[in-house]
């Protein structure tokens, strides 16, 4: 395998991170590294490589520049072939930036979005090669597909 066969998995805190952990079997066999929004999440994925970035929800806007810079550094250092995220905002940034650097991208919208796909999830269609909702009733032609859920 070339050194560009790495897989980047990124999720923000709480439920996004918990959902990502329920998918870990999918990452087995790849050179996978993780990006989370708190240093303490490192213990969940050890001994895999882990990077922490600051969260950038609508309530944490000041972190945006710091997070973009750190993500760029991570992407240039690791050069992942694919990026998978369970949301939210830092994952969206990673997909946008990673795609420009040639990575294949996957957005898995949070299962917490029961009645409608999240705002980020709707935007993800433009930057995700694999665009998924975890609710069958939210699947749409020209919208996200349903291929199961973390539950």
């Amino acid at each position, binding site marked *: 395998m070339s050194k560009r066969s790495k897989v980047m998995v990124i999720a923000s805190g709480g439920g996004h991170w918990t959902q990502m952990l329920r998918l870990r079997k999918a990452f087995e066999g790849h050179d996978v590294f993780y990006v989370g929004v708190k240093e303490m999440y490192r213990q969940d994925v050890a001994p895999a490589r882990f990077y922490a970035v600051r969260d950038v929800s609508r309530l944490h806007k000041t972190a945006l520049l710091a997070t973009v810079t750190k993500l760029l550094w991570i992407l240039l250092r690791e050069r992942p072939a694919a990026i998978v995220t369970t949301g939210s905002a830092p994952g969206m940034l990673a997909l946008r930036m990673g795609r420009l650097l040639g990575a*294949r991208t996957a957005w898995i919208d949070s299962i917490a979005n029961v009645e409608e796909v999240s705002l980020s999830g709707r935007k993800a269609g433009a930057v995700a090669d694999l665009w998924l909702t975890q609710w069958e009733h939210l699947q749409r032609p020209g919208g996200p597909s349903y291929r*199961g859920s973390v539950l």
Partner: protein
Amino acid sequence: MKVFVTVGSMLPFERLIKAMDEWARQNPDVEVVAQTGGGAYVPTAMKHQAMVAPDAYRRHCAEADVIVSHVGMGTVITAAEVGKPLVALPRRRDLQEVTSDHQIATAKWLREKPGVEVVDNEAQLGAAIEHMLGGPAVEDFGAASREKLVTCVKAFLDDAVTRR
């Protein structure tokens, strides 16, 4: 008896924390531990921490007789994994507790689930805790839909890596 209270690690949810602190004061024989997400209100009757590390979080959930939380999918999943009943109060956007009303929508779906009692307001928490004590755990979700998603993501990654 132990109750673990969690409102996630992202945002405070003082309405729930205040109500549970008051409940802890009225039930001094119960060990009440809370992950508060920070916030200005400092509990006096229950043990509390703004943020609990993932391993400690899981341990508190496993040790609790009942988990009391916001309607966070992380907590719902963990409660099912450790086999505990859950009492859940949705955050509300009109009270600036969250940026969208997705917890109300999730709560509607969650109401149908065995092992979960969704309450409409903080005044109902005490009765719900008593009701859920010793009751069934949050029903495990079964592996079928997860395997489907894992297979899909795996195929996507295998394809992405071979293209390189």
